[in-house]
């Protein structure tokens, strides 16, 4: 047993390292730092915590710890059972805190999932050449005067791809976009996004056909009135039948439906293939003014060579546009990253607001736990005296009351998680379009927060109990 002091030094060190590392992990995770560093910090924190726990138990005394832990758990269970009302009211504070934590987490994860789902339809590996950048710009006049993007730039890019098949680019497809009303007999859907594009579009899009097929190259070149419609459009116009080979009307033109795209789902009004009608670009040109229809070139690239790909598109575009070496680019190469960058601040705001509400709720809950532990210590002063007379050490009493506080917190945590799970399931059932994500990570987070709250709020009263003079405590009535 000699040399045991080293354990008493090691466990606080381990705890400090664990706290620092997990703090760093949280900051790194939120700031999207180098994932290697983040995971290193995470595992360091976990390892240091496990070490602190082990050395803490060794310092406590391995042989004594386990029976005393069992005794403390039994006391806590008996206390909660004997004071059901009091315990549940106290746990209520923690329940509210945990519900706030999990709902915030669910919201953030849900937004993430929704955005991913919406963006997934485009494919991660597509760059968009257009006149306007996708971010908000202050100096709009600089962009307004740019020359329009012409749809046949896609041919130039494809020609270059044909020259260099081993290059970072795969295929280029032009697209134009207009909003119009789609009719079929008495049925009508207004404000539908009409997409004019080439027959190669399916190569770029990570979306399957529900039925039918995409229009062919022949149909595209012949400017036939063949269209592919999204799931929601099909549902609205053909409620009880297959739309294949049926006719729809857009701007007094008849179109034959050759395919229906598989359902993608939509999120917060972001673009979704479900509410789109896709037709050959030359058919589009009959009804809509291509110049004003936000023409863009979609280029699929090798993601591993993204920078090289951008450079290649840029040089092709400069050549096609006849830009001199001294002239600036008069076009923009966009990617989905821009959309993600716009969502991130929204997520951060929810997180900050959530942290504040959660922190407040947990703080109130923690005060409740602290108060009830003080009451418990006061009520059982004589018992503490008896236990000390029978050989309970300071740390035994400390552990006992800490575990009591933690037990109530964990009960609150489990209750809160259950409630949050029920709530998010309810939200998911009521609003199917909002993707609700209730993950195992949230459960672990919720339980960790309850344990930490219990330890922090129970510590002061437990310390006071452990320091009671046994003579005074035994005399207490």
């Amino acid at each position, binding site marked *: 047993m000699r040399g045991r002091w080293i354990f008493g030094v090691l466990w606080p060190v381990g705890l400090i390292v664990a706290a620092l590392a997990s703090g760093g992990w949280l900051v790194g995770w939120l700031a999207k730092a180098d994932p290697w560093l983040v995971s290193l910090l995470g595992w360091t924190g976990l390892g240091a915590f496990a070490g602190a726990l082990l050395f803490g138990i060794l310092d406590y005394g391995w042989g004594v710890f386990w029976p005393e832990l069992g005794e403390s758990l039994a006391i806590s269970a008996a206390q909660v059972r004997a004071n059901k009302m009091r315990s549940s009211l106290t746990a209520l504070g923690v329940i509210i805190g945990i519900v706030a934590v999990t709902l915030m987490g669910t919201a953030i994860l849900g937004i993430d999932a929704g955005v991913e789902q919406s963006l997934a339809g485009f494919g991660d590996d597509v760059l968009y050449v257009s006149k306007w950048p996708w971010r908000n710009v202050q100096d709009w006049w600089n962009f307004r005067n740019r020359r329009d993007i012409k749809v046949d730039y896609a041919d130039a890019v494809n020609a270059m791809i044909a020259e260099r098949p081993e290059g970072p680019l795969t295929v280029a497809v032009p697209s134009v976009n207009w909003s119009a009303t789609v009719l079929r007999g008495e049925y009508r859907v207004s404000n539908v996004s009409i997409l004019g594009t080439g027959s190669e579009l399916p190569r770029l899009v990570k979306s399957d056909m529900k039925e039918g097929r995409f229009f062919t190259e022949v149909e595209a070149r012949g400017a036939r009135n063949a269209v592919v419609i999204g799931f929601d459009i099909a549902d609205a116009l053909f409620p009880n039948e297959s739309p294949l080979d049926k006719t729809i009307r857009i701007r007094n033109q008849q179109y034959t439906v050759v395919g229906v795209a598989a359902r993608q789902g939509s999120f917060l009004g972001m673009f979704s293939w479900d509410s789109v009608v896709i037709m050959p670009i030359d058919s589009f040109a009959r009804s809509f003014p291509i110049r004003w229809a936000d023409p863009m070139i979609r280029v699929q690239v090798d993601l591993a060579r993204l920078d090289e790909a951008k450079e290649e598109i840029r040089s092709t575009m400069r050549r096609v546009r006849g830009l001199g070496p001294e002239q600036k680019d008069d076009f923009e190469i966009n990617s989905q990253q821009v959309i993600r960058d716009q969502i991130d601040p929204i997520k951060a705001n929810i997180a900050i607001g959530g942290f504040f509400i959660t922190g407040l709720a947990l703080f109130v809950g923690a005060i409740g736990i602290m108060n009830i532990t003080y009451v418990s210590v006061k009520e059982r002063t004589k018992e503490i005296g008896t236990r000390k007379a029978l050989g309970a*050490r300071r740390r035994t009493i400390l552990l006992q009351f800490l575990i009591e506080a933690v037990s109530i917190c964990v009960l609150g945590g489990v209750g809160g998680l259950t409630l949050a799970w029920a709530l998010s399931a309810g939200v998911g059932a009521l609003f199917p379009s909002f993707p609700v994500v209730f993950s195992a990570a949230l459960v672990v987070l919720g339980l960790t927060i309850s344990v930490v709250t219990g330890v922090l709020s129970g510590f002061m009263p437990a310390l006071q109990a452990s320091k009671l003079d046994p003579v005074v405590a035994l005399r207490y009535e």
Partner: protein
Amino acid sequence: MIPPSAPAHAGPRVTRPPGALVIEIEGVTKLYKMGAETIHALRGVTLKIHRNEYLAIMGPSGSGKSTLMNMLGCLDTPTDGRYEFNRKNVATMVDDELADIRNREIGFVFQTFNLLPRSDALHNVELPLIYAGLGKSGRMEKARRALVNVGLGERMGHKPNELSGGQRQRVAIARALVNDPSIILADEPTGNLDSKTGEEIMALFEQLYAQGNTIIVVTHEEDIARHARRIVRLRDGLIESDRAVVD
């Protein structure tokens, strides 16, 4: 007066020769600060207690009796003076070391029994063994044996409120005995019992003494003290007399 019908005194009264030195107290004083006033609870007490002794400590209230008992029980440390327990210096020990001594060397019996109300007899007796770090099976075995020894083999699963006063005190005595302590320290063990039950408890102490336990009883009742083999009387923080009991 002991009623002649009391069965406990039907048997022979054993007196065993004192064994090794357990407690040695020399010139112990204890001061309490009560506001501006300083109270001299003990003014220099010197006392030796050996294994196999059956000792009563007597004195009126305010004599320092309780303070001495707390000191002997390692619940408190002296302001000044020497206190050795089994040749180990207790006076300078810190809280946790004192807790270990209390756990291993001293068995407490209180006037108010001090049982845990929500635990059954067996768990109450098991408690000191938990603090000693004994495994589950060993604890059960020893706790059962201690309860059988005090005549409560049939009542192990009962909670304190399902037991009579005498039975509660027997549970407390079993708890005091369970860790094979060097001394049993009883503070007014019959103070909350009627006289018949009190005599039964004193008979149990007699039996435990005969089995080889060292017993210290703190009391203010002559009748109770007369069961012991030696009586130490305190007055005003000093030992007034220290005599063997003659039958």
